[in-house]
């Protein structure tokens, strides 16, 4: 547990509902659920102060398993529903759970606008690169060539990179994790701490329809050669033997993964600057490597806070207006 997180009397199980979990045995969703519950206990907000809003998909069944308030809504619309919820009930901690289909296919537009408006939502996108609930069609994050029921000869659609999409949308907090990573709860705690929209992509294994897609990065043995967990201000080193790192390519000025040795030393590596949007852009999609952790974080006023501030200002300036006054505004005349 991160030292900055307040100790809390709440336990993981306080955030579990009484409903049986209906995911397939072995699904990556279980680990994420557990991570969220742990994070919530660490955050220390009581279950009744939390609402979890989702769309439709295997991942979106999430709210049923949480002992908090929850809304399992319709396909793709969770960010819009959550925005209304947050505006109406600003003290709630609002989480959005979505999938690569729910959040980036049908729901891409609401995602874009929740992010650019910077609504104070904690958005977790379960990316299994497949439509689970409808039995395995390719999704907008599926790699080209993937054979699925709807692409019997291989998909020809170029995939979207969720983190890049989020950056392009102007998101102020962009992070990435994977289902079984021990760092996951901490990532959620960070997302929660951020004022405004937090976008966390979690790579998630669908054992039934897309088993092993993320094996390269989360394989117990070799995974650490293909992933890096970045931390603000710390040097970007990775690899089973901490023998690899990220530096600025001296010619292009952009980030690249390198092996230490052959004249490249730790001093050549760069420190992760999480407030640097251009760096985050580079990090979000590297050739041989997947970056995890908080890729980008910048402070800005949350949309809902700005809305409330405006209401407060107008109240202050104009006072309350009664219904009678409202109806009598402007020209009126008396008929006797």
């Amino acid at each position, binding site marked *: 547990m991160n030292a900055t997180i307040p100790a809390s009397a709440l336990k993981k199980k306080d955030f579990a509902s009484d409903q049986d979990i209906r995911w397939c045995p072995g699904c990556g969703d279980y680990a994420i659920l557990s991570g969220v519950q742990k994070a919530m206990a660490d955050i220390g907000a009581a279950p*009744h102060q939390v609402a979890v809003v989702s769309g439709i998909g295997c991942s979106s069944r999430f709210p049923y398993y949480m002992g908090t308030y*929850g809304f399992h809504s319709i396909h793709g619309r969770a960010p819009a529903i959550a925005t209304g919820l947050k505006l109406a009930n600003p003290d709630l901690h609002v989480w959005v759970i979505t999938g690569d289909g729910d959040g980036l296919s049908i729901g891409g537009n609401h995602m874009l606008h929740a992010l650019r408006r910077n609504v104070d939502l904690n958005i977790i996108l379960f990316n299994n690169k497949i439509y689970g609930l409808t039995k395995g069609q390719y999704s907008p994050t599926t790699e080209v060539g993937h054979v699925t029921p709807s692409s019997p000869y291989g998909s020809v659609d170029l995939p979207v990179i969720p983190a890049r999409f989020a950056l392009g949308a102007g998101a102020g907090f962009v992070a990435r994790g994977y289902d079984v990573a021990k760092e996951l709860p901490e990532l959620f705690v960070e997302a929660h701490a951020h004022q405004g929209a937090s976008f966390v992509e979690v790579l998630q294994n669908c054992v039934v329809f897309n088993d092993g897609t993320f094996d390269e990065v989360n394989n117990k043995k070799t995974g650490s050669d293909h992933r890096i967990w970045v931390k603000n201000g710390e040097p970007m080193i990775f690899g089973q033997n901490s023998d690899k790192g990220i530096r600025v390519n001296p010619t292009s000025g952009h980030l690249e993964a390198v092996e230490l040795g052959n004249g490249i030393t730790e001093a050549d590596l760069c420190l992760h600057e999480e407030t640097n949007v251009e760096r985050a852009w580079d990090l979000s999609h590297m050739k041989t490597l997947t970056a995890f952790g908080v890729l980008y974080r910048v402070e800005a006023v949350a949309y809902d806070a700005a809305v409330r501030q405006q209401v407060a200002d107008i109240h202050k300036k104009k006072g309350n207006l009664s219904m009678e006054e409202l109806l009598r505004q402007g020209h009126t005349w008396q008929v006797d």
Partner: protein
Amino acid sequence: MTATNTKGDGQSVVREELSSVVIRFAGDSGDGMQLTGSQFGATSALMGNDLATFPDYPAEIRAPAGTTYGVSGFQVHFASKDIRTPGDAPDVLVAMNPAALMVNLAQLKPHGVLVINTDAFTPANLKKAGYDHNPLEDHSLDAYRLLAVDITKRTLEAVRPHGLSSKDAGRCKNVWTLGLLYWLFDRDPMPTTQWLETKFRKMPDVAAANIAALRAGHIFAENTAMPNGIHPYQVPKAELPKGLYRSIDGNTAAAYGIVMGARLANLPIMYGSYPITPASSLLHHLAKLKHMDVTTFQAEDEIAAVCSAIGASFGGALGVTGTSGPGLALKTEAVGLAIGAELPLVIVNVQRGGPSTGLPTKTEQSDLLFAIYGRNGDAPLPVLAAATPGDCFHMAVEAVRIATQFMTPVILLTDGFLANSAEPWQIPDLDSYEPFPVTFQEEDTEDFQPFKHDANGVRRWVKPGTPNLMYRAGGLEKADGPGNISYDPDNHQAMTKLRANKVAGVANTIPAASIEQGDTTGDLVYVGWGSTHGAITQAVAQLREEGHSVSHIHLRYLNPLPRGLEKLLRGFKHVVVPEMNNGMLDKVLRSEFLIDAKGIDKVKGLPFQIRELVEDGRQRLGAKPEKNSNVVAMGAE
């Protein structure tokens, strides 16, 4: 009747007294006709006339100057008697250019007054409007009382001292024309003068120039000998019920009604909407009321708009959304979610011409069946409709009441005509409204069940943030009571019936069906809904005066229908439904009561005219249509 007052030169003016006048202002989209018409209307309302207005403008912001499709019109009907419509045909047509004349002349009453800006009748403009000859020169207007004035030139002269650019100076010609008509119809120019001062507060030159133009038009009329047949008129105050009045249009009334409803329910409002003609001004009005517990959210589209409102309702606020046809189409799926999750939601649908984008700035009533049946699955909800601009206030309150008391989405139908037209409105006694405060469930009872239903099939509303009542809502079928996902066949049937019965039960809380005008039995009843109210009322009055046995029922609740309607309908030989669509309410009545209801379908983007219905009535009831009824022009001796 005549009356007198004083002319500018001290001579007394003899004014002919009229009981009602219809003026249509028409010109280019950029000519400011909407402004001119609404000022004339507002002033007439302030002067105590009864009033109805009808703006009719193209979908383009400023279509090319001089074209017929760029013509913008605004009709004002003001009277000393009770009127309900903007008038079938204008007594006075103001045509600011040849295109305006081309488009509108046919509707002017025979021998009507025609005010024309001769400066605009250039060869180029005549050609654009499709005239081969200048109608001012070929005697084709001889049948009218023509007041041809070089308005542009006189305006430019009048505003010259204020140093405007010639473009801006020319823009004042509408106000000059307004001044002329103010004198002609004895209107007080003061309110408009004040209004101009406020509007152009930040541009004092423009304000001064406009006020000068207004005065100049007024003075011109005062000092000019009017052509034959035109003389000053006067329309005395109407005898309206006592009380405090204001002028109101339907969207303002609906916006304020929502606020009123929320106060009665003791809830804050979250209005999520996406701009669309003719519903946008609902958003504009509510956005100004941030100091009245109103949050507005301009969403990225209509789906997000309705979803944000649903999210707000889930959160314990009153979620409201407003739109027009294409937007309602996009909200369809989410409305089903609100039904399934049993959450309150108010949807105001300001109908416009369809299908598809259709006629965005024209009025229509063609979303009725869509509102009632337009969702996947068995997904019933209450549908209400406002009958007049002012009635939008009351029906919006009703929509809020039903939504919150029955935990259901409600669709309130208005239309482009109601939205844009104004009428004098007696400010209601707010104390006469019974409050219906929402009490959220707060007690942590041992057997707490979020989807437990009372005798009316209504569940309790729980506000997230309440300790110990954490629950999950959703769109999958829920077990009656606990609300967990249930695929149980009997439960689904029970829940389907429960949802249907809940909506049907709304009928117990609304007024029983009643006759609006006429006897409770007879030869013919016109059954209307929505903005046809005025035309039907007037037509029925006229038919009754002619001795016909005709009555009027006006439905403000379309689903469920009010109790006792069938019995009432069976009291008439003919049941006829005039609608601005291709036949919708008649379908509902036929299916519901097996009564042979017939439709009168007008799908022209325009409201009914009184005479259309009068003629229909006469035909059905066998009397010969009276000759030349309704065609005696104002002041025509």
